[in-house]
């Protein structure tokens, strides 16, 4: 079997991630911050340690501004629904996932104005399209770092730099880039970063978070969920302290223990090494697939400008038929269709049929890539 669906969720997970989750239940199964006994304290220590690792990983100074969520969808919803008010203007791109588009479209009904920066057919964003849309009335710019359909990397740093000239904060959806490419919030000027743990960070599902840079006034972001935090228990009002303001209810502690281990795993290897391997595989995939006459590859063809995600279609074959054959006859697991990103598919010219998506990661080998190309060739000729 060759797993080529890491953009949906990575598999396998490093052994140490699974071990950490198991050990958490054996050694620290208390509820962090609720009780004062040793198991509760162990849990709180583990969570704090992970918070510090996450902050360091993305270069955020204050680890108490790391808010754990169930993933990037919840983190994005927290910002969009907590911050935008009727009459506000927001800019986003035509390459966004529904994690951004659906909350925005829902807010649109409540009177929020959405302005979409159109990307080209390769999924690339020309910075001048942002320049044309931006003015001081804009409340927020939301942009994905790397497309979940074509892997295309958007120029986050440039977008942030222009937005900051107008004093507008930038929310970055790092679902497909965190763990795959370097993210430095300080250097890139990212004000709000939404990440998920279960994709390229190789952690468990149900983990992720929102990182809030120091310049953001959190009183401008209402909590999405209110409830027990273990702190200020004498009050019936939600506390304003971070991270508690946004972390009501018992945390996904075992998941966070797993995420903590997955960050260790990646830190040992280093993003440059992960990236080098990814680029080699992407180059080979794009070259190999482009060589097949019946195959059309979507998005940017430059591996340096993308994460290891390659979308394609085969002439006169439906994507579901191709995906099914790759699974049944070759044991190659892909994801076909629209990948929860209709806007991106419209931009790339693959709507409404969608594409077959290949997304290898650090656990795939060059042999996997060669076998995949050969399998696609056979399906194309069948």
């Amino acid at each position, binding site marked *: 079997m060759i797993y080529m669906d890491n953009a949906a969720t990575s598999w396998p997970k490093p052994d140490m991630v699974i071990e950490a989750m198991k050990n958490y239940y054996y050694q620290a199964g208390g509820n962090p911050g609720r009780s004062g006994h040793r198991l509760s304290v162990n849990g709180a220590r583990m*969570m704090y340690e992970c918070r510090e690792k996450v902050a360091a990983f993305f270069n955020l100074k204050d680890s108490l501004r790391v808010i754990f969520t169930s993933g990037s969808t919840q983190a994005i919803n927290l910002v969009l629904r907590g911050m935008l008010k009727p009459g506000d203007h927001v800019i986003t791109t035509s390459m966004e996932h529904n994690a951004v588009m659906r909350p925005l479209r829902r807010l649109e009904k409540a009177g929020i104005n959405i302005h979409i920066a159109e990307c080209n057919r390769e999924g690339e964003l020309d910075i001048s399209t942002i320049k044309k849309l931006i003015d001081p009335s804009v409340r927020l710019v939301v942009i994905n770092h790397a497309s979940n359909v074509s892997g295309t990397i958007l120029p986050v740093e440039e977008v942030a730099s222009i937005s900051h000239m107008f004093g507008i904060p930038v929310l970055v959806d790092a679902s497909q880039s965190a763990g795959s490419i370097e993210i430095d919030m300080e250097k890139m000027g990212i004000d709000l970063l939404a990440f998920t743990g279960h994709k390229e960070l190789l952690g468990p599902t149900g983990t992720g978070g929102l990182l809030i840079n120091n310049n953001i006034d959190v009183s401008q972001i209402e909590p999405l969920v209110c409830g027990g935090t*273990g702190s200020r228990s004498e009050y019936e009002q939600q506390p304003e*302290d971070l991270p508690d303001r946004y972390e009501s209810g018992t945390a996904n502690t075992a998941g966070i223990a797993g995420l903590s281990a997955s960050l260790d795993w990646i830190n040992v290897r280093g993003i440059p090494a992960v990236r080098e391997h990814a680029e080699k595989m992407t180059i080979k995939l794009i070259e190999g697939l482009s060589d097949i006459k019946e195959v059309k590859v979507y998005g940017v063809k430059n591996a340096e400008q993308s994460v290891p995600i390659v979308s394609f279609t085969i002439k006169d074959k439906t994507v579901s038929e191709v995906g099914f054959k790759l699974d049944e006859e070759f044991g190659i697991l892909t994801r076909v269709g629209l990948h929860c990103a209709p806007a991106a598919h419209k931009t790339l010219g693959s709507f409404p049929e969608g594409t077959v998506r290949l997304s290898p990661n650090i656990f795939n080998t060059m042999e996997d890539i060669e076998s995949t190309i050969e399998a696609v060739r056979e399906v194309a000729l069948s």
Partner: protein
Amino acid sequence: MNEYSVILFHTTSSVMQTEKVLKQEGIAVKLIPTPRELSSDCGISIRFNKSDREKVEKIIEVNSIEFDSINDLN
């Protein structure tokens, strides 16, 4: 018998942050359930030897740690 002081906090994360910093500075600390008579916000507090109080206050200030109050235990 040792005499103790206790730091109260608003969040568990601040307790964890402070525990780490104080341990790094070589201060002997113990995490305890917040004494009810001190009536606190957060379920866990940090107890340390009263003789370290000045040092602890300094460390907390240098690290701009958010806390509620420091109290001597009777």
